[in-house]
C-alpha cells in the first residue's frame, strides 16, 4: 500500500490499514510522516481525554467502563466511535515492555466502534511516548469521536498528558497518601476532573475531603469563569459512578467550547508539538555536523575534570 492508498483506507475505516499506519507513525518512518502530513487537515475534531493517576489506581478498569458509557447511544450522538491509546512503561535496560492494559478491557472486545492500541513509553519520561500525540492525530483523522489516552502509572510529575488532552481525568484511590500529598504541585493541578476510584474501600471520605480541600484553596485565586474540577466517586469494576463521570466529561467539553478554551488548548498543544520537533531536529542536525570522536573526547575531558559541563558545551558548539 502506498501513502495515498493508506490515507484513503484509514479515512474509509479500514482497521488493518489504521493499525499498520500507527506502527509506521510510532516508528517515525518516512511513510508514517508522509501519511500524517496528508491526514493532518482532518484532525482537530476528536475529543482527547487523558486518564492518569498512580499505578494501581484503576485507570484501565475505569477506561473499560468509561468507553462503554461513551459508546452508549444518545439522541444527539447515536454512534460515537471511541479509540483508546494505553501507554505502559518500557524497560530502561532492554527497551522491551509488557503492555497489559488490555487485560482490564476485555469487555470492549467485539465492538467495531472501539479501537484499542497499546503503546510502550520507549524511554519518554512524561507518562506518554514521543509518538502518542501523532498517534492520537491518526485516530482523530480516522474519524474517532473520542480518543481516550491512558498514561503510564504516574507519580507526581508525569504531566505531559495535560498538554495533549482536552480533558484530563486524574484517578486516585483511597489510602494513597495524606493531605500533604494533595497540596503538592504536579499531577493534581492538571486535573479537569478528579476521580476517586475504588470508592467502596475504607478511607474514601478522607481521600475525597483532602482533594476537595486542595480544590477550595485553588479556587481562591482562580478566574471567575474558570472551570472548577468536580470530585467524583467511582467503583469501576461495578460500573458505579460512570454515568456521572460521562456527564462531567460532556460538561467539560461544553465548557471548553463555550469559553474558547478548546481552541486555546489546541493551539497550545500544537505549539508544544512544534517545539519538540524543532528541538529534536536541531539536535540531530547539530550532531550530524560534529567531527567524529569530538563528543567522546569531550566526555573524556569531562570525566577527568579538565572541563566543566558548560566548558565542554562551548567547545562542542
Amino acid at each position, binding site marked *: 500500500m502506498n501513502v495515498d492508498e493508506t490515507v484513503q483506507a484509514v479515512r474509509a475505516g479500514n*482497521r488493518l490499514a489504521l493499525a*499498520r499506519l500507527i506502527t509506521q507513525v510510532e*516508528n*517515525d518512518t518516512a511513510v508514517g510522516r508522509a501519511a500524517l502530513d496528508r491526514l493532518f487537515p482532518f484532525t482537530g475534531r476528536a475529543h482527547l481525554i487523558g486518564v492518569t493517576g498512580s499505578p494501581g489506581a484503576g485507570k484501565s478498569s475505569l477506561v473499560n467502563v468509561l468507553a462503554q458509557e461513551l459508546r452508549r447511544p444518545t439522541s444527539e450522538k447515536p454512534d460515537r466511535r471511541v479509540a483508546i491509546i494505553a501507554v505502559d512503561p518500557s524497560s530502561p535496560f532492554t527497551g*522491551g515492555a*509488557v*503492555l497489559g492494559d488490555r487485560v482490564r478491557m*476485555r469487555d470492549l472486545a467485539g465492538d467495531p466502534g472501539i479501537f*484499542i492500541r497499546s503503546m510502550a513509553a520507549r524511554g519518554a519520561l512524561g507518562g506518554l511516548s514521543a509518538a502518542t500525540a501523532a498517534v492520537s492525530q491518526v485516530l482523530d483523522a480516522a474519524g474517532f469521536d473520542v480518543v481516550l489516552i491512558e498514561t503510564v502509572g504516574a507519580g507526581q510529575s508525569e504531566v505531559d498528558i495535560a498538554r495533549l488532552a482536552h480533558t484530563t481525568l486524574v484517578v486516585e484511590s483511597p489510602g494513597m497518601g495524606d493531605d500533604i500529598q494533595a497540596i503538592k504541585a504536579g499531577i493534581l493541578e492538571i486535573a479537569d476532573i478528579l476521580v476517586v476510584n475504588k470508592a467502596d474501600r475504607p478511607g474514601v471520605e478522607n481521600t475525597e475531603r483532602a482533594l476537595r480541600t486542595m480544590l477550595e484553596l485553588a479556587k481562591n485565586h482562580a478566574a471567575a469563569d474558570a472551570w472548577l474540577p468536580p470530585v467524583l466517586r467511582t467503583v469501576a469494576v461495578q460500573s458505579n459512578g460512570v454515568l456521572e463521570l460521562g456527564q462531567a466529561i460532556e460538561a467539560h467539553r461544553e465548557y471548553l467550547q463555550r469559553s474558547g478554551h478548546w481552541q486555546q488548548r489546541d493551539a497550545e498543544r500544537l505549539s508544544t508539538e512544534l517545539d519538540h520537533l524543532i528541538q529534536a531536529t536541531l539536535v540531530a542536525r547539530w550532531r550530524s555536523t560534529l567531527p567524529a570522536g569530538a563528543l567522546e573526547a569531550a566526555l573524556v575531558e569531562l570525566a577527568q575534570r579538565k572541563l566543566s559541563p558548560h566548558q565542554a558545551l562551548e567547545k562542542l558548539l
Partner: protein
Amino acid sequence: MDRKIRVLVAKPGLDGHDRGAKVVARALRDAGMEVIYTGLRQTPEMIAEAALQEDVDAVGLSILSGAHLALTPRVIELLRANGQTDVHVFLGGIIPEEDVPQLLAMGVAAVYGPGTATGKIAEDIRKAVLGE
C-alpha cells in the same frame, strides 16, 4: 528508530493457568520486545481482533486444556481473514508430541513444550520476524 518487535501473548480457551504465558511474556520483554498481554479465557475472535489492532509481528498462544487442535486453526484462519498473512503464530503449553506435525501443517511456526529455554523462543521469534 530501530524496529521494535511486537508480540501478542494470549491464552485461548478455558484453562485458568497463565504462569507459562507470563514467564514467556517476561522473557520476550527481557529480549527487548514489546509484548501485549491479554489475559485469560480469550476467544479466537478476541485474539485475532487484538492482533489486528496492535499490528503485531507474532502471536504466542498458551494452551493447556487439550483444545489446541480446535483453537489454533481458528485463530490462524481469523488472522488470515483479517489480512494478517505475515503474522507468525507459535504455541506453548501441554501439546502431545503426535499433534505437533499437524499443528505445523496448519501454519504454526513452532510448538514449545514445558522446559523450553525462554531464550530460544525469543531467538526463534526474532529470526522469523526479521527474516534472518
